């Protein structure tokens, strides 16, 4: 079953096209890793897939209630404890309780600690644990391994593998080799939007409408 289907997608940041002609399918149990140089539009593509911004062209077909998005920021409240942070997102998404997620990312010992007291890597792990409590099948991850140490990256890879094994899917942008041999890789390099000088299509194309001008 195709969970997520992207066809001829073009995405824009600040009104300017960054990548175009992107297409892929993601089925249950599959992972797709986006690669490409900085500024190629990986984050923009992920935000478009997550429904946070509209595509300039093309379609994203997915059940909007299937996607769990994790961006650069972890969405943690520093005044709340680790367990309270997770419990909140679990309630909002109607997913499973925080117990299993705490164990999967080795946060059990820290559960009563305010999030403000965590190190950067621990915060990241808490941010990733949030994915587990959403109970959603398609994970859209933007640089999930930033500030994780080697052991935590391995822990995270195990979480991803368990998620895929349980019928989940993952779409992620990462520069680190996660040792996920089953994951496909999509290089965005060839999809860079044409910007061949001042007459190139990327520069001269005026926004098609009000909405796109603010996209």
């Amino acid at each position, binding site marked *: 079953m195709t969970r997520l289907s992207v066809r001829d997608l073009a995405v824009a940041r600040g009104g300017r096209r960054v990548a175009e002609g992107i297409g892929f399918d993601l089925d249950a149990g599959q992972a797709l890793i986006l690669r490409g140089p900085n500024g190629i539009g990986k984050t923009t593509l992920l935000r478009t897939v997550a429904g946070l911004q509209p595509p300039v062209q093309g379609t994203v077909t997915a059940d909007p209630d299937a996607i769990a998005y994790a961006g650069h920021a972890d969405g943690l409240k520093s005044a*709340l404890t680790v367990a309270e942070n997770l419990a909140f997102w679990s309630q909002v998404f109607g997913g499973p309780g925080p117990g299993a997620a705490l164990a999967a990312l080795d946060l059990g010992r820290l559960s009563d600690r305010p999030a403000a007291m965590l190190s950067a890597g621990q915060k990241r792990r808490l941010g990733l644990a949030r994915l587990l409590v959403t109970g959603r099948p398609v994970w859209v991850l933007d640089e999930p391994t930033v500030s994780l140490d080697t052991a935590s990256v391995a822990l995270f890879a195990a979480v991803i593998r368990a998620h895929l094994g349980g019928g989940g899917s993952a779409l992620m942008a990462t520069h680190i080799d996660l040792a996920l041999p089953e994951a496909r890789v999509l290089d965005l390099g060839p999809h860079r939007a044409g910007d061949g000088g001042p007459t190139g299509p990327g520069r001269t194309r005026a926004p098609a409408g009000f909405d796109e001008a603010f996209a």
Partner: protein
Amino acid sequence: MIALLMRDLRLATRAGGGFGLGLAFFLIVCTLVPFGVGPEGGTLARIAPGILWVGALLACLLSLDRIFALDWEDGSLDLLATAPLPLEGAVLVKAAAHWITTGLPLVLAAPVFGVLLHLPAAAQPWLLVSLGVGTPALSMLGAFGAAITVGLRRGGLLMSLLVLPLYVPTLIFGAEAVRRGAAGADGATPLVFLSGITLAVLATMPFAAAAALRVNLR
């Protein structure tokens, strides 16, 4: 929605949450006015309805930029936008949390401050009711202003400029109800107008604020 409300209330009451700041500000405004105007009871009683309403309005404004800015900074807003909860609902809940932590304490404390300003006893119930009816509109309009300016650095001042004109109808009818109460007249008419404004604001602003948030999240 309950979870979001409880989280916002919990955050407001924990360290650095800013709970009570608005109330303290209101107290200081009400204490400063007699120093500036002079302690003469008749003058104070005449201007008290206006001062109390303007003070409540400014106190409300003080904490508005926190409604969305903090969630924007730590990425929670992106996650809320992708959550099953409609963004309109999230806006409504966050405005409600703002009202409970800022507006409600102002309403409950206002009679005490009314005494500070020699407000006639006959006007006290009108003050309580008009603030109780009017302050939800202040929080909701503020949430709209905060949604428009979310993501702007130093957006607080711009937000004040956007929001304060929108507060004018609420201020006019709220203060008028108290003034009529103080004069021993019937303040029901301005109170009905005030309720109408609040209901219209509550009905429309969640959609406007959610639309503004969606544009700002892109």
